[in-house]
């Protein structure tokens, strides 16, 4: 054994720890990710800013707030115990005891993946918003509120709180599109708000139905979904409601009406959040409720999910191929990763579910890149799952997992991906090699801030693509500073996927 191996050798029988792990821990770690942005947003909102004198300061505050959050998240990621199937960093306080509502937060592997995505995207969104010149105070306040709401929806373990955060995320994002978007921003914002509002309403109906049916006097996710009292009919009915709610967010065909306008008219920093973390919440909801909590419905409705995935990917490819507007094409193509994630869920196999969790992260980053029509070549490669980038691992796992239970769905999604590939080729050619439009305003390359935000998103894809299990000290299995996203996300997946494991064949 090498000297380094001896130095970093892990004496405990538990999985190899990362050097530096357990240095820092906080009982309010998850609350920090929600309430720090809220406090900073309020502070920015009330700060005097005569004639925009402190615009730059506000941008800096928003940036350092996000940087701090990413630091906290990195600690959470680093300390996460990947071998524990239970929820970690749990916080539980009674809020409305008469209704059974608790302020219950916690994350498992998939939740951690989503939080990391949200953190990365948070920084990227601020960097992408450095060009904002009007009403800077309001813009960054709303941006931080949106991030807080998204983080809240990710970590909440109480379904009442989930509905609140879920709905709350729609308001600042719609306002951002309405206030700082392109020429058709008003209709885009209304459309976004209407669809996401519909989703929130439907989700609330589903949650209240669960609350009534179980009679548990609690909105806690574990109580509602793991009570074991849900009959097959109830599971199917509630699962259908959840699918509708998720389809408005992710989005899935045919509830995708907001995508084109919101992603093409919104300001770049906002589009990054909408296309990635905020919309991935749809798939996250499906994973949490339908797949993890309602196995009977998961089994019965998986063909429906596969069909929705195939329709979404195929439609996105065709629509992107058909449109002549480059930003519309980018917006449609941003639907593709969502389809792949849902195919993984429809696979109802442990590997497929793991693939879909990874694709929450990779798809979020790829969608953010392609929706912004920037770093086009990398975005295109990430979208199509070309190796070296993380989306390759996600797609391989999803397809491998899907083939046993959903072969037709997997083939259909593959065909849709081929159409998307053509659309990507057309988009690349138009943007990179097409003749310039003489009537269009002059173009310029990305600014320094935009370059950093693109680099951050592309770097995230590249890092996880190169080291899905984290970098190791050469010659050993000891991880360096990064324990590996793939290792950390497995916590909880086995538990979620346990109802779908194929029976062990009898010994010969």
């Amino acid at each position, binding site marked *: 054994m090498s000297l380094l191996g001896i130095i970093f050798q892990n004496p405990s029988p538990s999985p190899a720890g990362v050097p530096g792990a357990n240095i820092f821990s906080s009982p309010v770690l998850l609350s920090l990710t929600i309430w720090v942005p809220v406090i900073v947003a309020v502070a920015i909102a009330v700060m005097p800013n005569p004639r925009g004198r402190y615009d730059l300061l506000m941008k800096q505050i928003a940036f350092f707030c996000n940087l701090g959050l990413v630091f906290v998240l990195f600690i959470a990621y680093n300390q996460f115990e990947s071998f524990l199937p239970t929820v970690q960093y749990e916080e539980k306080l009674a809020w409305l005891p008469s209704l059974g509502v608790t302020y219950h937060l916690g994350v498992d592997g998939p939740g951690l993946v989503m939080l990391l995505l949200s953190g990365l995207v948070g920084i990227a969104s601020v960097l992408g918003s450095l060009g904002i010149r009007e009403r800077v105070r309001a813009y960054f306040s709303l941006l931080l509120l949106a991030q807080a709401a998204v983080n809240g929806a990710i970590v909440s373990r109480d379904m009442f709180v989930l509905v609140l955060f879920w709905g709350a995320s729609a308001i600042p994002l719609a306002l951002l599109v309405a206030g700082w978007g392109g020429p058709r921003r008003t209709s885009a914002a209304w459309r976004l708000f209407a669809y996401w509002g519909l989703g929130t309403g439907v989700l609330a109906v589903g949650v209240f139905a669960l609350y009534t049916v179980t009679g548990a006097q609690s909105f806690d996710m574990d109580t509602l979904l793991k009570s074991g009292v849900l009959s097959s009919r109830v599971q199917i009915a509630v699962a259908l409601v959840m699918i509708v709610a998720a389809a408005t967010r992710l989005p899935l065909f045919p509830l995708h009406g907001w995508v*084109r306008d919101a992603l093409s008219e919104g300001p770049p920093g906002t589009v990054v959040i909408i296309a990635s973390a905020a919309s991935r919440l749809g798939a996250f909801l499906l994973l949490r409720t339908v797949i993890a909590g309602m196995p009977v419905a998961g089994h019965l409705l998986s063909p429906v999910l596969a069909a929705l995935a195939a329709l979404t990917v195929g439609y996105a490819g*065709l*629509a992107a191929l058909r449109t002549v507007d480059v930003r519309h094409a980018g917006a449609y193509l941003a639907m593709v990763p969502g389809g792949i994630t849902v195919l993984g869920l429809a696979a109802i196999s442990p590997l497929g579910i793991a693939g879909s969790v990874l694709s929450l992260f990779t798809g979020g980053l790829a969608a953010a890149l392609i929706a912004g029509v920037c770093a086009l070549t990398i975005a295109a490669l990430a979208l199509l799952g070309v190796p070296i980038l993380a989306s390759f691992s996600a797609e*391989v796992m999803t397809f*491998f997992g899907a083939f046993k239970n959903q*072969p037709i769905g997997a083939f259909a999604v*593959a065909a849709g991906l081929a159409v998307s590939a053509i659309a990507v*080729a057309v988009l690349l*050619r138009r943007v990179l090699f097409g003749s310039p439009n003489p009537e269009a305003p002059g173009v310029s390359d990305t600014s320094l801030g935009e370059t950093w935000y693109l680099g951050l998103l592309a770097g995230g894809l590249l890092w996880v693509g190169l080291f899905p299990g984290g970098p190791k000290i050469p010659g050993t299995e000891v991880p360096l500073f990064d324990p590996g996203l793939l290792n950390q996300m497995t916590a909880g997946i086995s538990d979620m996927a346990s109802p779908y*494991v194929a029976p062990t064949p009898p010994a010969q």
Partner: protein
Amino acid sequence: MAMFGIVVTMLLTLLVAWGLTRRSTPFVATYQYINMSVAFSGPSNFQTFTLQLILHVDHLTVVALLAIEICMMAAIGWHSLMGRTEPGAARFHAVITALLFACSGMLMSWDLAELFGFWAIGGALTYLLLAHRWGLDEAASRARVALALPFLTDLCFLCGIAWLYARYGTQNLSSLVPILHTNPGWTWFRLMPIVVASNQQTLRALISVTLVAAIAAPLLGMLGNEPRRAVALNGSGAVAVAAAVLMNGFQVQSSTFAIVGVAAVLAIAPARAGGVLALASIASAMRTDDLAEMGEAWRRLRASAGALLVTAAVMAVADCGALAFGVKSRSFLGFALGEAVLLVAVGGLRIYLAASFGPLRRRRAFEPERVRQVEGALGWPYLLAIAGAGFLVASLFAGWLNFLDGQKHPAASVGAILVWAGVAIVGFAIAAVSYVRGKDGALAASAAGGAWVHRSLMVAFAGIDRFLIRPTTDIARRLEDWVPAGDSALGRFTSTSGQLALAAGRVPALPIVIVLAVALAIVFAIVAPGVAR
């Protein structure tokens, strides 16, 4: 810099080859890329998912690597002289170097998912190489097809691997070989598990497809006077013959039959690349891409014409060894493949004859007397031609086949080799006679055939566009219109109902209730038994 990278890679390959002579087992290096536990119960092979990057280098891999490196080296060397005016030199060199990486990865992969990864990188890079000339509309539209079709087949490949995984819970060749009870000596053919896992009917279908390709490709190459397309199609025909022999080897469970197909491909690959480069030199010097406008290359561009002749000969004869080892000339398969070899020979020599002989006519802004060979670019097509010829000669000996896959193979009879070489010679003779008797007539016939093919393709594409692409994209467009219109209507409906509800709130309730009660009473009275009925 790119050339330096390839030279270093080649030196490393030679070092590995030297190392292989000192040991009896292949070199294997493993890196664990993904290893995750996904379930704690159920079949043990589905409880974890492992994707290892396994680099497995045996004799065949080393030889294939050398063949690819020679081709890449020639492409870069030739491009540095002949492609000086092309835009984006740095991009070209970067992409081609990355392509070498992908090809090397493909050849060394031992895990099917890893193989797919390198395969996909190779596909993307090929597309980016084609995109190098995206400024041209025609290049762009062809590049799109060149992306979409291979991407679709790549996804089919992924589905194939996924199917294997879904069934056996592994995609590692070392694990799959014992499960599938296949000959471990065949693992040089990385797609072997997919082929073996399929049934005999699928294998027969594969042989039929390769047979059709073997005949159709050189035939299509002869229809039309575009020289590089003709060489490329001719090469495809020759490769298809080798592939048919290989598939036949799998069907009859003969490792000799299978490896001879690979040995033939090793000879064809550099020859085809050399032919394309030689022709590109000629086309560039004569400033035309039409065989009918070419001529006198033998007098003015002797080196390029010579290289073209050697590559045409190698491509025509390359399959002879494989056919002599693996196919009976009197069988249906032998007859069909003989026809393919004949067509490859005719197609190959016809290009050489058309470019090398006959008058080189003066055209607008073109002076035949100024046609000169670019000296530095000469060596590369020759290098490829010689490499192809070397591989061809080697493929005729059983010792070479033994070396490639490490198994013992019988020697092919000289008579069989001569029979198949005779077919190619007959093809040469047919081409020579027809072009000596009337070059212009032969080329005019080719041009007419090419125009017919072009028209047919246009009709086919128009049909595809009319009946497949346009309806599907129309559906997408209509949906694109319908979805916003639909949800706008829904929004209006909601808004109107809200306004109506508000208005209803202001109306006095009693008269409304009385009116409604009277209306309902009338309706009930009408529909009640005894009134209307």
